[in-house]
């Protein structure tokens, strides 16, 4: 899967050669070199104008660069410290360096390797002068480039090997020989721990031309002795059977054969499929440290350390970051306030629209309200009239029902009704109780009740009935 499309541009100024490489992630965890340039350029000739010219003419698009420091700018120190907690160890390291280096305040340092041997902390550090860092920072900044920081040649080679071994921080002992134009470097490392490093004076030119047999002999001897020394001082970490070779020299089979016979080890053949975009094999061998640092930047290798940054750069970045943060906050505040203002303004506009809308419909609304009021009044009137109408003929209906349900032998002598309510019903019947019982069964007559006494004579029982209140006739 493709990593996030990110370009890394690495610059190296070493042995009078300026190298620039631009790397992007490619498919299947390969990386693609989109552009590279190498030119012999003495350090003094490197000016902002020259850099600008190179950037313009050679078509480099990325302005954010990282630098690989020249080997002569980096000092290495090995310190032995007691086993301490991390914070105390750092403090002890600082004190130790302050004691051992007179102008320590003029240096920036990084721990490049830390291991425990013989119950002691073995710490290897790289020191770079602040003036050198400031020089490069100023140089690249004046050239219109963004200087991210400086890294080590050693770190680039280490990253490259880890990448070749499958992206993992391998825990096996690895050994590489880097033959440059001004020196040769032997490094043995295990994971991130530098087990051994030594610089020899032999150069690629001497080895390639082989003009002085004595120099070659010295090289052979130095190489053998270095390896013997390493093996004696590190018996636990046996050298592997293969070694890595970096530098133009390793593009030439004859030289490779010579070196492998000296070392009595085989050269690891590079997996060139992982590195795309290189035209000549010798270029690949010379760009190894740059590619190694680029791999960190395109996140193919886990970054293990920060770049060397000068005090001046740190202060400038801090200042810029402060203003950038301020700008971000100010923008946020403006956005928030604008948001509030727009909400409020929007609300106001909506209100005004509503008011305008209401005003435009004022007349029709008034008419409708009048209609509703009129309807309500008419409905009330109608209800009253319907109520009046509903009582029409109620008395006749009552009388018809009464006559229909009177028991046999019952006669009515007197009826008086007012407002639909029976006030008095007088008559005679054989049995008043039977009469009442019968009337109770009829819903319309169920409210009739006995009024006064029952008088008994020869025609039967004389009674008076009246209607219970509550079923009052409706009056308008």
């Amino acid at each position, binding site marked *: 899967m493709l990593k996030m499309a990110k370009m890394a541009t690495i610059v190296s100024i070493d042995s009078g050669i300026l190298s620039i490489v631009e790397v992007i992630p490619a498919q299947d965890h390969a990386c693609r070199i989109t552009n590279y340039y190498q030119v012999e350029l003495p350090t003094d000739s490197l000016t902002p104008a020259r850099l600008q010219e190179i950037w313009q003419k050679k078509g480099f698009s990325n302005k954010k660069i990282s630098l690989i420091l020249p080997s002569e700018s980096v000092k290495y120190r090995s310190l032995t410290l007691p086993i301490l907690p991390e914070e105390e160890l750092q403090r002890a390291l600082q004190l130790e360096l302050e004691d051992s280096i007179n102008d320590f305040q003029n240096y920036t340092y990084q721990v490049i390797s830390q291991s425990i041997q013989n119950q002691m902390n073995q710490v290897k550090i790289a020191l770079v002068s602040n003036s050198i860092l400031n020089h490069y920072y100023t140089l690249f900044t004046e050239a219109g480039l963004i200087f991210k920081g400086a890294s080590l040649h050693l770190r680039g080679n280490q990253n490259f090997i880890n990448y070749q071994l499958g992206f993992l921080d391998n825990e096996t002992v690895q050994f590489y020989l880097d033959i440059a134009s001004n020196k040769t470097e032997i490094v043995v490392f295990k994971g991130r721990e530098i087990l051994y490093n030594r610089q020899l004076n032999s150069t690629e030119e001497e080895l390639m031309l082989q003009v002085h047999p004595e120099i070659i002999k010295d090289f052979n001897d130095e190489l053998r002795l270095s390896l013997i020394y390493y093996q004696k001082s590190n018996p636990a970490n046996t050298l592997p059977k293969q070694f890595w070779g970096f530098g133009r020299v390793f593009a030439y089979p004859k030289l490779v054969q010579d070196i492998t016979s000296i070392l009595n080890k085989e050269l690891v053949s590079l997996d060139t499929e992982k590195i795309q975009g290189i035209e000549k094999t010798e270029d690949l061998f010379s760009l190894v440290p740059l590619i190694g640092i680029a791999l960190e930047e395109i996140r193919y290798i886990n970054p293990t350390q920060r770049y060397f940054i000068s005090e001046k750069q740190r202060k400038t970045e801090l200042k810029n970051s402060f203003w950038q943060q301020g700008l971000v906050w100010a923008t946020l505040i403006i956005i928030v306030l604008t948001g509030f203002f727009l909400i409020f303004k929007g609300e106001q506009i909506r209100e005004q629209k509503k008011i305008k809308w209401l005003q435009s419909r004022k007349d029709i609304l008034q008419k409708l309200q009048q209609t509703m009021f009129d309807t309500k009044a008419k409905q009330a009137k109608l209800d009253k*009239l319907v109520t009046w109408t509903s009582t029409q003929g109620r008395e006749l209906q009552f009388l018809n029902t009464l006559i229909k349900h009177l028991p046999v032998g019952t006669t009515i002598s007197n009826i008086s009704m007012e407002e639909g309510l029976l006030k008095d019903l007088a008559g005679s019947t054989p049995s008043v109780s039977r009469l009442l019982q019968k009337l109770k069964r009829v819903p319309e007559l169920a409210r009739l009740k006995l009024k006064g006494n029952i008088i008994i004579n020869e025609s039967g029982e004389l009674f008076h009935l009246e209607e219970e209140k509550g079923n009052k006739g409706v009056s308008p």
Partner: protein
Amino acid sequence: MTSRERNLIIVVSTVIICGLLYLGYSNHFFQNLVVMSPNNQLQNYEKTRYTLANKWNIMAKNRAVTKTLQRVNKSFLPFKNTKEAKLRLLKKIEKLIVNAGLAVNQKRMLDISEKIIGVTLEGTASSQVLFSFLHSVAKDKLCLKLNRLQLYSLPSKNALNYRIIISTLLIDEEGKAP
């Protein structure tokens, strides 16, 4: 958190709070947006929308009520001319009496209330005739109502002595369509 970050947060928070307070103070932002202070015109907005949406229902209901009222009004006499109303009531009653063949000894116009007029009828009649009369009163198009009904049986004559008050309602001229 470094002191610079802390100071930055304090400054930013102060600016935001001041900004909000300014908005709240100058534009009654909170009153309008948060507290929702009453605005009569806007309060009516929803009500107006509802009323306008129901425009046709309102009109239709008014038309229907007016029509029904006009129809019902025909069953009553107008209030504006009480004398004429009384005359019309009396004529109507007399017509019903003649139609039923009811014997009436006494009849008298009556003002029951401001808007209710009536006619008192007294006499003796057979139950069939009286009931026929009462039936025609109940079924008449003019809404007539028996205000009082008193019946005494006269077994010797096989008749009923009656005293009834028939009333009707006087109404205002209403019910015209708007």
